[in-house]
């Protein structure tokens, strides 16, 4: 029966090509707009560490000693003392300190290229296993390298291509500012979206968070080595007092170090929370810090707290779905016109014994066919839309591609939309009174 209805549907669509074209166009344009923005949303709001994000946490303690303000949230980073106190206890399964990445002058000692500015992230050895960072050559540095302030570095595949033509550069020397670091590892191409370990300050960004989707740093070096080679040149998240001229970062009244921890069981999470609270209370009792607020958010909670999806993208998605709704109303109107024009034909079918359900099924088959063709058009328009997104100068423009799930969603959405659009006209058509129609023939 379905093939018969399909045949009828094709005939009906052919009979009135202009109306068919209008309906297909409306669905295609609506689906194209909706799927373009939905794909961007899908890419931007995804889990950057699938399977592991629930075990990765961002720890916060409020290090500000100055009393008087109402602090509802601890600052997004910690001072040197708090961060290293927490880190050095090794209470978590894994723990990594991170700094605010800053471009530093880089050159390869045996390369003729001019020096370049490349963002450098100072972190600790657990960073690589905790975040499942893939290595092309070599590996990360060891825990001993952290405490020994070893002059080592890991570089990104992108920087390795630029400096060493993509060859195995492990063992070569990289000059960072005025220090020589030995390369111990080269990453595979790696592009978490968003660049979660650099996400912070989102609540002050007014929704302008496209910067969270940038590329990973070109150089990773041990945090404590950074204290030696980058003194006076760190960026901070905020300061509660003006740093004195020449004051070393380890004593600066500034929040500039973040702490990521991996906790593999709920019991460990609870224990770590208690540990943070105790630490803050103890430090407050000592008079070093003024507040006892602490936070331990898992990765996705931390991203959500930072409103990580740019508000422009959310706005565009709402807009696209409003547009799809208009296209839907439009299609309902046109389908209604189309089905009611065939009232005579339907009347005869009913008179010959077709049930109302059969008429509805026939009408919905036709609507579904329109949805399928519209979905095809919508898929092409989505590809055009994504191409347009990629032409924009946004940090995430290179990330936006359609994957299999979004491809399937395109057609499912198109057919669902067309079936919804067809439901009302189909039910109207099935209520045609056969006698009345036959009489007028």
């Amino acid at each position: 029966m379905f093939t018969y209805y399909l045949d009828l549907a094709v005939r009906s669509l052919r009979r009135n090509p202009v109306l068919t074209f209008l309906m297909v166009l409306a669905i295609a344009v609506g689906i194209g707009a909706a799927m373009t923005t939905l794909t961007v949303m899908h890419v931007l709001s995804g889990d950057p560490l699938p399977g592991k994000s629930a075990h990765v946490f961002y720890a916060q303690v409020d290090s500000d000693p100055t009393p008087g303000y109402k602090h509802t949230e601890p600052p997004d980073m910690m001072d040197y003392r708090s961060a290293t106190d927490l880190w050095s206890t090794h209470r978590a399964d894994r723990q990594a300190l991170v700094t605010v990445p800053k471009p530093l002058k880089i050159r390869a000692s045996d390369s003729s290229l001019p020096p370049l500015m490349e963002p450098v992230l100072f972190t600790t050895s657990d960073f690589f296993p905790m975040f499942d960072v893939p290595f092309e050559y070599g590996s990360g540095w060891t825990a001993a390298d952290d405490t020994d302030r070893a002059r080592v570095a890991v570089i990104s595949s992108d920087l390795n291509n630029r400096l060493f033509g993509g060859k195995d550069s492990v063992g070569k020397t990289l000059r960072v500012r005025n220090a020589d670091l030995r390369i111990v590892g080269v990453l595979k191409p790696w592009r978490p979206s968003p660049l979660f370990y650099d996400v912070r300050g989102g609540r002050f960004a007014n929704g302008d968070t496209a910067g969270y989707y940038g590329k990973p740093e070109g150089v990773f070096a041990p945090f404590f080595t950074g204290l030696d080679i980058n003194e006076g040149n760190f960026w901070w998240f905020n300061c509660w007092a003006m740093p004195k001229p020449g004051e070393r970062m380890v004593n600066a009244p500034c929040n500039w170090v973040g702490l990521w921890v991996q906790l593999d069981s709920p019991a460990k999470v609870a224990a770590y929370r208690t540990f943070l609270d105790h630490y803050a209370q103890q430090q407050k009792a000592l008079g070093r810090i003024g507040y006892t607020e602490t936070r331990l958010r898992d990765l996705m909670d931390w991203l959500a707290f930072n409103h990580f999806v740019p508000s422009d993208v959310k706005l565009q998605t709402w807009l696209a779905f409003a547009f799809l709704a208009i296209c839907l109303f439009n299609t309902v109107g046109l389908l209604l016109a189309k089905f009611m024009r065939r009232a005579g034909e339907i009347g005869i079918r009913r008179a010959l014994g077709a049930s109302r359900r059969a008429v509805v099924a026939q009408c919905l088959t036709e609507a579904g066919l329109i949805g399928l063709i519209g979905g095809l058009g919508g898929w092409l328009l989505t590809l055009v839309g994504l191409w347009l997104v990629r032409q924009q100068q946004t940090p995430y423009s290179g990330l936006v591609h359609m994957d299999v799930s979004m491809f399937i969603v395109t057609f499912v959405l198109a057919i669902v939309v067309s079936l919804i659009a067809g439901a009302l006209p189909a039910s109207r058509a099935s209520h045609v009174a056969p006698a009345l129609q036959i009489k007028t023939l």
Partner: protein
Amino acid sequence: MQIQPIVSALRKHKLATALIALEIALACAVLVNATSMIVGRLSAMHINSGVDEASLGAIVVTGFDPKQANDLNARMVAGLRAIPGVQSVHVVSSVPFGSPWGSMGVTLDRKHYVTVPEFYEGGPGTPEALGLKLVAGRFPATDDYQPLQGYLPLSSRVLITRALAEKLWPGESPLGKEFWSGKNQFRVIGEAAHLMMSQYNEEGERGAQWTVFVPTQPGGQLSGTYLIRAKPQDLNRVMTAARAKVAKIAPDVVLDHDYSHTLPTLRTKFFATDRAMAGLLVGVIVALLGVTALGIVGLASFWVSQRTKQIGIRRALGATRGDILSYFQTENFLIVSFGIVLGVTFAIGINLVLMRHFEVARLPYWYLPVGAVVLWILGQLAVLAPALRAANVPPVVATRSV
């Protein structure tokens, strides 16, 4: 023109009428809100930076040791000034649309923070080179330019914008008044009409102008960013030459390609995403009006073909072509009007939701009647073709097979 028969005819087609009216309503709501957002983005793009953008450019270099700062400043200023067409070169902390130097909370009583303005620093003659317009007070004199103690002089005589003065001392003249940031003291000697934050984040014109200019001696932290002034017609040539010359002046530093541009170029880059968003919104509006018009055409065509016989009878009974035409046009006008009444409610509702969740301004209410007129015109144009076809139905149709 009798409306009564049209209304009773529409009553027979409640569903189709409601659908078109709903479509118009949604279109009206989206149209009005999207237009308001476009206007918001475009007006943000016209922010007054307070400086002579057309004559200014910035050269930013990084990757040098702070100990070399004085030597680098001397070499850069001398080298850049030697480029033909350069009127002046000043060492500055940042420029509007450049990379921000720093924001600090300020207090009037050393206890309660009032607001967080952005600070600019610059060597002797910078305010004049920027082209700042004073509304009160004076530009810094030579002895107002003091050496830095770290990031700021301990006590400085500064220029602030009118917007910041209004925030700190509402209704009073700021001249001679003091404010503090930590241990640093600032005394206001001049009030500038405008000087925008280097990278303001759409808190509106008011917050974007909360800035302080601190006159300082170059050196130490104040190094690496150079303000170049040239005649507007020379600027592009001068900046191209300046970027190329940096490699000769200081081979060991790295030119910041993102921020070493003319100010007009930096402005264009700064607003690139806003421009893209505005373009996208225009695209949506065009597509939206197109789809709505198609819906009207489709449904009107269906009604015309359905009523061919009635039209024939009316014509046979003496109705003119004009009567038929105006029947369909009035019918469309009524449907669109229902849609607009509904759409105005939707538009205000959507605006309230957007205002709560996004950085969207309140909808100016005069947009609503304008949106209504646009939709009425769109409806009339869309229905014209089917209505003309209806008007051309010959009276003889009435006599054919009943």
